[in-house]
């Protein structure tokens, strides 16, 4: 449809309300469509690409046999690289070959296909409705109310026979009161994580930080779960820097400037372990909650709401640091019944 036609039309019926679709743009021929040499060249290129693929696959197989995994880490690197590059080459050869073939040698005349409306025509719809109506009438479901109720009840209740045993067991013993306790007990020694050496108060010099587990951790039945709750960070502060801790009046939870706080963040439970000895701030590398160790582990920044619970500590007769008791509150993230 040329512009000329449209202009004459314009004049005849005054100005049309809308523009008219000019139709598909004119087809542009490729070099290969007109020049047999170019066509032949494209064919050769496709052949070369598929040949590269074969070479790549052969290369990968050669690499598999020629590059064994040894006791040197570099052998793993070379084997991975050799096999991977061969694989990549064999795949990319096929891929680019096929696409190049489609682009240069297959017809590039655009085809127009008509769309049909998605919805069915009215006759089909009517027939469908009639089929359902007939079926419903046949079953007489509308008139037999009790039957309907019985069918629905049976279908609704039978899944419980699977769901109840599943739910009963999927949460283990469902004893969520375990959140409230750790294995820390009066007199239990503090030990270094992971070596398990007990710690003497005199070992903890000002400015140092100890990552602590309960002594004899590995003898616990569920030591992994217990460790997940019991890990503690031990820091000695210069007495002059220590603004306060969480000891209730009449008790002393720290020993000679040594304080022990739960390492499990009160936000979502990452191990908070990033201690800056100059500022006495403890930063959680997961979400950047910052606690002030010199001031009862109060939150100074970030998404946590509560201070880290303090482990009351003292020393035993041999000078080793021991717990006075379990934590006074559940450690770690908040949950609904935490304060109950």
């Amino acid at each position, binding site marked *: 449809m040329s512009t000329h036609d449209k202009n004459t039309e314009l004049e005849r019926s005054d100005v049309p309300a809308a523009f008219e679709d000019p139709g598909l743009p004119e087809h542009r021929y490729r070099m290969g469509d007109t020049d047999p040499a170019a066509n032949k060249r494209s064919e050769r290129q496709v052949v070369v690409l598929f040949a590269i693929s074969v070479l790549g696959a052969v290369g990968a197989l050669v690499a598999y046999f020629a590059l064994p995994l040894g006791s040197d*880490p570099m052998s793993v*690197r070379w084997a*991975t690289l050799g096999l991977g590059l061969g694989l990549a080459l064999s795949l990319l050869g096929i891929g680019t070959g096929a696409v190049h073939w489609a682009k240069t040698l297959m017809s590039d005349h655009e085809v127009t296909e008509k769309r049909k409306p998605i919805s069915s025509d009215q006759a089909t719809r009517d027939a469908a409705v009639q089929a359902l109506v007939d079926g419903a009438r046949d079953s007489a479901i509308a008139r037999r109310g009790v039957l309907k109720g019985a069918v629905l009840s049976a279908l609704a209740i039978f899944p419980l026979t699977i769901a109840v045993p599943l739910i009963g067991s999927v949460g283990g013993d469902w004893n969520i009161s375990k959140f409230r306790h750790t294995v820390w007990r009066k007199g239990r020694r503090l030990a270094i994580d*992971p070596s398990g050496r007990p*710690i003497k108060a005199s070992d903890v010099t000002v400015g140092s930080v100890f990552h602590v587990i309960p002594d004899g951790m590995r003898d616990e039945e569920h030591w992994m779960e217990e460790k997940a709750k019991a890990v503690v960070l031990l820091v000695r502060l210069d007495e002059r820097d220590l603004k306060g801790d969480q000891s209730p009046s009449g008790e002393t939870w720290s020993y000679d400037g040594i304080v022990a706080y739960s390492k499990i963040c009160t936000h979502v439970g990452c191990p908070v372990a990033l201690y*800056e000895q100059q500022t006495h701030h403890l930063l959680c590398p997961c979400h950047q909650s910052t606690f002030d160790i010199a001031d009862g582990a109060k939150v100074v920044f970030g998404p946590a709401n509560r201070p880290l619970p303090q482990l009351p500590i003292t020393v035993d007769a041999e000078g080793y640091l021991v717990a006075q008791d379990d934590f006074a509150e559940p450690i770690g993230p908040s949950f609904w019944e935490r304060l109950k």
Partner: protein
Amino acid sequence: MKALAARRHHRFAPVVLMLLALLATGALYAVMTPTTATADTSASAEDIEAGKQLFQANCATCHGVGAGGADEVPSLIGVGAASVNFQVSTGRMPMQASGPQAPVKPAQFTDKQVDQLAAYVASLGAGPSVPTAEMVDPALGSPSNGAALFRTNCAMCHNAVGAGGALSEGKWAPALWDTTPTNLYQAMLTGPQSMPVFNDANLTPEEKRDVISYLVEQREPSVGGLSLGSLGPVSEGLWVFVIGMGILIGFAVWIGAKSS
């Protein structure tokens, strides 16, 4: 006791307290690190004198003529040769401006001058000394035990393989790729800047060597190919967009374009 309470407000009380604290710390160190603290005696009097000259010229402005420190500046009495060697040989000291972070710079002193400075500071009060070559030899350590220790004690700041990480308020834990074994040992022993101290009761000298062994092991090329900075999932996510999606969209454009 009353007399003591009255004198607590005496203007020399802080000084006396500090001296007492220093004595206590020094004594503690002497007990804790008997092998390392006594090694200092080898320094000659000339070295100490030369070190003193260097100190007066380069360090005394901040740390005071007697190295006693000031408000924000730590006293150097009792920090030991290890601390001086670490701070000066890595170029952290002298600092350009006072602040919580001492960035690494090209070292300003020769090795000999560093030793002289260390000898002078060590002479002011007993402290940890520079470790011997054997103490920091990565070949003698166990990389697997070092890895376990590093995970628990170091990775939260320095990243799992020592690529470094952020601390609060603009401070950071540096990458450990280029740190010498000696400097690694000294850093653990002395706790420079924000870093806590890992004394020999916390990490024994053998354990420190294991950590060094692990870190040196990490300098080998990654077995899987380019390490992408060893920064974990964020850099991997960035590269999947830049390289993966980038290349594939390039191919898609090629596939969708008309052939010439």
